[in-house]
């Protein structure tokens, strides 16, 4: 990560900074391709009825459910993900590379596959679900808990990889000094390590929340589509599209607004995190 202070290297001339046409044209095309759909969304939005649509019972219900579940998934990811990142970065686990690949897998896996996998484990006939049902009368699929689990499954890796990277970039000598001052490994983690990687934890949590908020495939597969309990915003948008595209656009605008907020949070925190660990 170069920064502004690095300055221009001796070999870098003003000429080299002007992009060649073969890169400039496709580059600009890519930019337009990314921006134009969002512009269309903003242009087509029924601005005058926006508040009315969003305030209706079903929409407010879906929005509230989405915010609640995505927040819970983020908190679960923090509680489980920070320790996992520590184990990856510091635990000297045998086969650490394989474990890291395993953690990354949900990021590249199609979310719907994640949903099927969760059903195979926790479904009524699932590996674990069968016993949960028989022993405790517990059924997880198609509940709000299932929504949170689906969201956590796909978003946890974002947090783990962000924190793992920060931990591996951290100067170990601070932790060494803490130990010589009599601090236990836990005290060192709590009072030295965690505050030093806080920006990365924050950035990871924000990414995690954004991913959880947008979760669709794993959720609809594992949790279904029940108003009030499992119908999150992305699912509500998909359904609205069939009946009233205007409503779908209005709902999308709400998610765009939340995503923009996330991006602002991310820019202020992620960049500082990268700056402190590289």
């Amino acid at each position, binding site marked *: 990560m170069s920064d502004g202070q690095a300055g221009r290297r001796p070999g870098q001339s003003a000429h080299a900074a002007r992009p060649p046409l073969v890169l400039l044209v496709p580059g600009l095309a890519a930019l337009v391709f990314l921006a134009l759909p969002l512009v269309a969304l903003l242009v087509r939005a029924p601005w005058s009825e926006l508040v009315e649509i969003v305030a209706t019972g079903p929409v407010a219900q879906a929005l509230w459910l989405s915010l609640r579940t995505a927040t819970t998934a983020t908190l679960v990811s923090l509680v489980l993900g920070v320790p996992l990142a520590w184990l990856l970065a510091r635990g000297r686990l045998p086969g650490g590379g394989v474990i890291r690949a395993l953690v990354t897998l949900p990021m590249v896996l199609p979310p719907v596959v994640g949903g099927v996998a969760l059903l195979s484990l926790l479904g009524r006939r699932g590996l674990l679900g069968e016993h949960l049902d028989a022993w405790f009368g517990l059924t997880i699929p198609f509940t709000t808990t299932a929504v949170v689990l689906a969201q956590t499954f796909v978003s946890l890796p974002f947090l783990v990889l962000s924190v793992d990277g920060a931990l591996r970039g951290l*100067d170990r*000598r*601070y932790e*060494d*000094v*803490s*130990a*010589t*001052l*009599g*601090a*236990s*490994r836990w*005290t*060192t983690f709590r*009072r*030295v390590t965690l*505050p*030093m990687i*806080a920006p990365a934890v924050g950035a990871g949590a924000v990414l995690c929340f954004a991913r959880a908020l947008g979760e669709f495939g794993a959720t609809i597969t594992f949790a279904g589509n029940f108003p009030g309990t499992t119908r999150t915003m992305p699912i509500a948008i998909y359904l609205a599209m069939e009946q009233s595209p205007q409503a779908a656009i209005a709902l999308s605008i709400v998610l765009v607004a939340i995503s923009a907020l996330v991006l602002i949070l991310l820019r202020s925190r992620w960049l500082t995190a990268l700056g402190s660990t590289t």
Partner: protein
Amino acid sequence: MSGATATGALEVRDAVVRRGDFEVTVDLSVAPGEVLALTGPNGTGKSSVLAALAGLLPLHGGAIALGGEVLDGDAAWVPPERRGVGLVPQQHLLFGHLSAVENVAFGLRARGMRRRDARSEGHAWLERLGLADRAHLRADRLSGGQSQRVALARALAASPRLVLLDEPFAALDVRVRDDVRALVADALRELAIPAVLVTHDAGEVETLATRELSLR
């Protein structure tokens, strides 16, 4: 200052310190109140020897004992957090997110002292090192010289049984260097613990050390 725990001499017998391909064997002893200067050209393993004494680098042979307790060797191993060996590293390595006084109080807090008591002790040390007015500044806002003095206070405030100083005055301004050196000499005399000082400065060996061991 809080009462030091039972103190005694540092005894290092045929300690094999290894880092990567590099290896050095050390044999030394330092009595309480003594300051041993560890000198020698760069790359002779001075910092690695300190790391071994602090418990950050396990020995590959020989033994380290402090006040009769074996810290490393003879099938014994005491982890750094239970050694009571203070370290003042070359770069101060202050905890940037904590204030100056929180840095100094860190070791006392880690050993279970109440926050208020640890802080007042921290303030006393900062005052002694001429940093009373910087107590509540975040450590990453301190100047290089101030940071190094806080690092000294942080190590000494934890009442170590042995203190290791890795070129602690190198980053200091010439104008304050003599003052701080005198303060450290006083503090070491008062604590009456063994100290090992890594230095390149012949004058420092002269004024601060009671003995010199040159690695090569």
